[in-house]
């Protein structure tokens, strides 16, 4: 394999390729010769063998977050885990109160779940993060009311890669007796997780950001002190009644194996990926008018979210056809609104439109980073030559003083 694979994949926060070792473990769980049984079959060896595999996977997932395997509930992914956690806890504890606190930069799986609860009569406070993307614990504390039952704050942000101080929030919510849910879809293998040290009550996880398969995730549900949730999917009573449905052995085994590898190789991998991310940033930062979005220190190693002022993100991606990245530009969505995450940081709309998210990972090479630097520089230069805003900037015009014709 060459060290430069074109197109270069730098969108690891969208999803990751499945690690070969994971794929191998999964394919062993499908055919007649393999471990295909239903883990719930108690009466024969096919079921027992499948259950053994699920037990091992459960342990691997639990180990990575410092939990007991009995606290892991399999789901179809982080979206389902977020729904189950927030709706499940809000409903279960609704006799205590109907107020929920979350943050404006959360994933849609959390925000839309909260919107649904609002339609059902719950009240939700959406906190503004600071300009660096981090939550001010004092503002969170100030938002807590007597009827607050659930606080939901993500661990690692999917767009800007910043890491919230989960332990500080957990200490606060525990002292107030509030259920604390954490969307940790982006963190396994990137930041250490310890649900006990962090006082987390519910944690959403998924496999496909960790070199595991899509369509499988888990929800950590604390047992001591016991956290209760209302099931959202009813049926055969699997997963102690919290999530019914026949367990997908191959998916679960894939998630378990991906978490085992992530846990084991985390330190080495993060050092390598961070060096590559810094190489990328160093190759771009001397350009004029580039801005990093989100805190650079409290950030996972593989994320660089950067705005190239006076260049629009979608056209930039069009120039970078050999590089797979994503943008906060409105044009990449159907909504005509730029990234709500960048706007919540107080970034003006122009800079949100001009942003690119590079996310590096296990298979990124130095050659790919160098290729990307060269391509990005070339594309930005070309588009600035085409940009009337760049002209005006160079002529010393203050763009904020211009009366733009709104449309």
């Amino acid at each position, binding site marked *: 394999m060459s060290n430069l694979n074109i197109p270069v994949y730098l969108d690891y926060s969208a999803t990751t390729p499945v690690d070969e070792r994971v794929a191998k473990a999964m394919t062993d769980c499908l055919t007649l010769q393999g471990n295909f049984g239903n883990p719930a079959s108690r009466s024969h060896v096919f079921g027992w063998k499948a259950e053994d595999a699920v037990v091992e996977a459960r342990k691997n997932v639990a180990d990575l977050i410092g939990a007991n395997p009995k606290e892991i509930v399999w789901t179809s992914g982080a979206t389902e885990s977020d729904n189950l956690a927030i709706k499940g806890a809000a409903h279960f504890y609704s006799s205590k109160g109907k107020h929920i606190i979350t943050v404006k930069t959360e994933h849609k799986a959390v925000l839309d779940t909260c919107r649904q609860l609002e339609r059902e009569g719950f009240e939700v406070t959406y906190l503004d993060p600071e300009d660096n993307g981090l939550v001010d614990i004092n503002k969170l504390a100030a938002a807590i009311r007597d009827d607050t039952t659930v606080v939901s704050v993500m661990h690692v942000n999917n767009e800007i890669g910043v890491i919230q101080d989960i332990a500080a929030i957990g200490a606060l919510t525990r002292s107030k007796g509030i259920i604390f849910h954490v969307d940790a879809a982006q963190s396994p293998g990137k930041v250490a997780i310890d649900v006990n040290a962090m006082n987390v009550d519910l944690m959403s996880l998924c496999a496909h950001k960790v070199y595991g398969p899509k369509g499988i995730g888990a929800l950590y549900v604390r047992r001591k002190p016991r956290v209760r949730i209302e099931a959202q999917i009813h049926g055969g009573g699997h997963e102690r009644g919290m999530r019914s449905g026949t367990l997908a052995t191959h998916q679960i085994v894939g998630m378990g194996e991906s978490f085992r590898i992530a846990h084991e190789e985390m330190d080495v991998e993060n050092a390598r990926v961070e060096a590559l991310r810094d190489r990328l940033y160093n190759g771009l930062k001397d350009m004029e008018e580039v801005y990093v979005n989100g805190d650079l220190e409290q950030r996972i190693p593989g994320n660089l979210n950067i705005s190239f002022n006076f260049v629009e993100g979608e056209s930039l991606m069009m120039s970078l056809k050999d590089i797979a990245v994503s943008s906060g530009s409105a044009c990449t969505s159907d909504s005509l609104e730029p990234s709500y995450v960048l706007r919540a940081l107080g970034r003006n709309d122009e800079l949100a439109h001009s942003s690119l998210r590079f996310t590096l990972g296990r298979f990124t090479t130095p050659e790919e980073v160098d290729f990307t630097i060269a391509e990005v520089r070339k594309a930005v230069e070309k588009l600035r030559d085409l940009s009337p805003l760049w002209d005006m900037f160079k002529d010393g015009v203050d763009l904020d003083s211009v009366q733009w*014709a709104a449309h």
Partner: protein
Amino acid sequence: MAYSDKVIDHYENPRNVGKMDADDQNVGTGMVGAPACGDVMRLQIKVDDNGVIEDAKFKTYGCGSAIASSSLVTEMVKGKTLDEAAAIKNMEIVEELALPPVKIHCSVLAEDAIAAAIADLREKRGETAPAKAESAA
């Protein structure tokens, strides 16, 4: 999103990129859009003594379809009188570039840019826009 070949062609080889002297009496400048909305087009036209557009230049901040729309427009207006140029409709741009529905606003912006450039030129020359073609007929 997949782009049409024509959008890609205009994007990769934009026609008539540049800037003309905005103070020239024969140059009309139209700037439309807003940075906060993700697109700004600057279209400039230059007329000869007979009032025919002899040159056009653009610069655009925006997505690929916005760049392609303005590049196309510079080609369309050349050789036209101001009245003929003013009659260009955004749907002609949509058809020529095969723009998808979410990109129609780019063509609208390009039509607005032509109108703004013509208005600027007419104002400079102390002309008022002639009555609409319908009422003249």
